[in-house]
């Protein structure tokens, strides 16, 4: 088919302090059943004006990471360690420790947010116009009229049909896609430098999802807002993000520019995920590649590299690898279950948390790896 033109992307701004840098974030829930380390040493960064996709399977800690940045982690959860450095307006704030009153002006102001289910974030008893105006009044010293005018301007910006009429409607009168447009309008109303969008299109149909992703890309290009897009859909990331962080079991296991990550994945988990997707030629070439085993719960995170029970490349003392194939352990080398592999740079801007990323042979595409049958 015809090549799809790339989404409007900003050329990367010069590399100075990233807009947001999360360093070794630990957020845990203290339940009667014990401590649940939902986010356990997450490090990632996002540059000004860029879109960072955070992908990973259910329960890997994506939402808890986002909620930590916004300091909205539900009790009994709390941030236990790490820094969340937000560099805005010439100063750097550590959101992990910022006092709540100051945090209130950041949240919804310099950092906007969009969630999966707009119905739970929109107040059902206020009109769409009042809600956006209220968000503006909370952060800007403007008159009620100016706030309302801003609300209308925002509804036009997100291309809601009949914006003037919609101002006076209630959320339940809108379709799912329309509500998500309202959420985007509200998130952008105070000119944020960063928008955190947690599964903004997961509840929508694909043709509506396409509209919303198109809108987000376009607004980002025009307004220069950086976006953190959380999703479990690798395709969404591949088509809309500049950079990608892949999470597994409470940690970032790989971060790289999107094109690099999808062309040359280096972490065995990323490789496995990409290879497990059917592609057009694969129908008659046997079963899909699979990752053995299942996603661990935070209560049962394995020691060392958390992927080791499922990893085809794991080097372990005994026959512990989930694939049944154990790469023998050379003398003097640490087994994968003995220590946490560090997140280290294997190519410019390409970070991997795996002891053996360099020794897995030349970087190849997941499809080539699949064809070679390294995962089965």
């Amino acid at each position, binding site marked *: *088919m*015809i*090549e*799809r*033109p790339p989404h409007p992307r900003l050329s990367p701004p010069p590399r100075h302090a990233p807009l947001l840098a999360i360093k070794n974030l630990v957020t845990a829930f203290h339940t009667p059943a014990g401590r649940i380390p939902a986010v356990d040493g997450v490090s990632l960064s996002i540059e000004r004006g860029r879109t960072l996709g955070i992908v990973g*399977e*259910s329960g890997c800690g994506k939402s808890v990471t986002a909620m930590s940045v916004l300091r909205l982690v539900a009790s009994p959860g709390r941030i236990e360690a790490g820094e969340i450095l937000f560099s805005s307006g010439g100063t750097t704030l550590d959101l992990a420790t910022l006092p709540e009153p100051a945090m209130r002006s950041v949240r919804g102001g310099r950092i906007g947010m969009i969630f999966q289910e707009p119905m739970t974030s929109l107040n059902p008893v206020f009109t769409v116009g009042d809600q956006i105006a209220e968000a503006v009044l909370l952060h800007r010293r403007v008159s009620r009229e100016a706030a309302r*005018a801003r609300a*209308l*301007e925002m509804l*036009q*910006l997100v*291309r809601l*049909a009949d*914006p*003037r009429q919609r101002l006076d409607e209630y959320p339940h009168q809108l*379709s799912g*896609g*329309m509500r998500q447009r309202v959420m985007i309008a509200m998130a952008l109303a105070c000119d944020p430098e960063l928008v955190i969008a947690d599964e903004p299109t997961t509840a929508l*149909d*694909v*043709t*509506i*999802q*396409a*509209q919303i*992703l*198109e809108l987000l890309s*376009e607004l980002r290009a*025009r307004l220069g807002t950086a976006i953190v897009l959380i999703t*479990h*859909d*690798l*395709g*969404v*990331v*591949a*088509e*809309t993000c500049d950079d990608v962080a892949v999470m597994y079991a409470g940690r970032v296991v790989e971060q790289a520019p999107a094109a690099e990550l*999808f062309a040359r994945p280096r972490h065995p988990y990323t490789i*496995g*995920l*990409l290879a*497990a*997707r*059917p*592609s*057009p030629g*694969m*129908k008659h070439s046997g*079963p*899909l*590649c*699979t*990752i053995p085993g*299942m*996603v661990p719960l935070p209560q049962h995170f394995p020691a060392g590299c958390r992927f080791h029970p*499922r990893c085809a490349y794991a080097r372990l003392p005994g026959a512990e690898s989930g694939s049944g194939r154990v790469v023998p352990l050379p003398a003097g080398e640490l087994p994968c279950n003995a220590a946490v592999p560090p997140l280290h740079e294997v190519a410019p801007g390409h970070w991997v948390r795996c002891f053996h990323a360099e020794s897995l042979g030349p970087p190849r595409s997941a*499809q080539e790896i699949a064809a070679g049958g390294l995962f089965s």
Partner: protein
Amino acid sequence: MTAPLVEVEQLQTYFPIRRGLLRRVVGNVQAVDGVSFSIARGKTLGLVGESGCGKTTVGRSILRLVEPTGGRVAFDGLAVRDLRGRDLRNLRRRMQVVFQDPYGSLNPRMTVRALIEEGLIIHGLGSARERVDRVVRAMERTGLSRQALERYPHEFSGGQRQRIAIARALVLEPDFLVLDEPISALDLSIQAQVVNLLIELREQLGLTYLFISHDLSVVEHVSDEVAVMYLGRIVERATAAALYAQPLHPYTLALFSAVPTVDPARRRRRIVLVGDVPSPSNPPRGCRFHPRCPLAESVCREVDPPMVSLPEHAVHCHVAARELARSGGNASVAAATIAALLADRATPPTATLSPG
């Protein structure tokens, strides 16, 4: 050609909309409105389309979990609607369903053994001993260990629960399975395991599938034929190879192009449709897709497009019909023309920042 195992002709399932104190019927949700297809024994028909287009209702109508309001469903040559009593029960044994939600569809208070055995008891099949043997065999087929017999669903992961649901269907030795989004609720790294299992079982047991999913790549991988639904109707149906290589219906093209993919070889120029899916209680007249179709012409607003059939491909669209006629029935030429027309017309409107 083997005779089809499942034949659906002009299937119609409307749900009444009731209002007021007297619950008077004020209209109908036209969930399924004139759907026809057939599935040959051992084959898989994939059914795709957006939320609410009627996929689940098609599956449920075939199984008679809802009563269709019109049309004909035949299973292995028997008219499903006329079956009563024992024949209906027997039919229900031969047609099974696996739902999307491996959490909701299993009774949490029943052990795995009781869950899988339940169907055998309902259908009065086998002695107590034979039943256990059959339960264990079904579990082995789906990769569940014997140790799971006396455990409860909450002790299992999503992928394992879906295996329990599949074992529950298989134990009755059915011929036909309706798989309604069987992998959507599963973790990404687990989906491929279940897809492989379903294909393996089909091959081993000669099963026939109606495979409902919104994951177009998985549908292509699993299906022999694929049908695309929009607002209660099938708009296009073809062999998987023909549909994915040469989609002819503007909606199919838009749907395919809207699905984000990591695979550059699969990426298509995105056609962004304007507007929302209309309500099935008041579908547009003429072609149901016309309010959102970038190629709509005046005839589309008035006349329901008839089906145009090629050997491996059928489509309901005025423009596709014209392009097929023009190209002498050459689907790839017609498909290329329609794709080019859409690329021309479907550029998304650019917004203006200035407030009104």
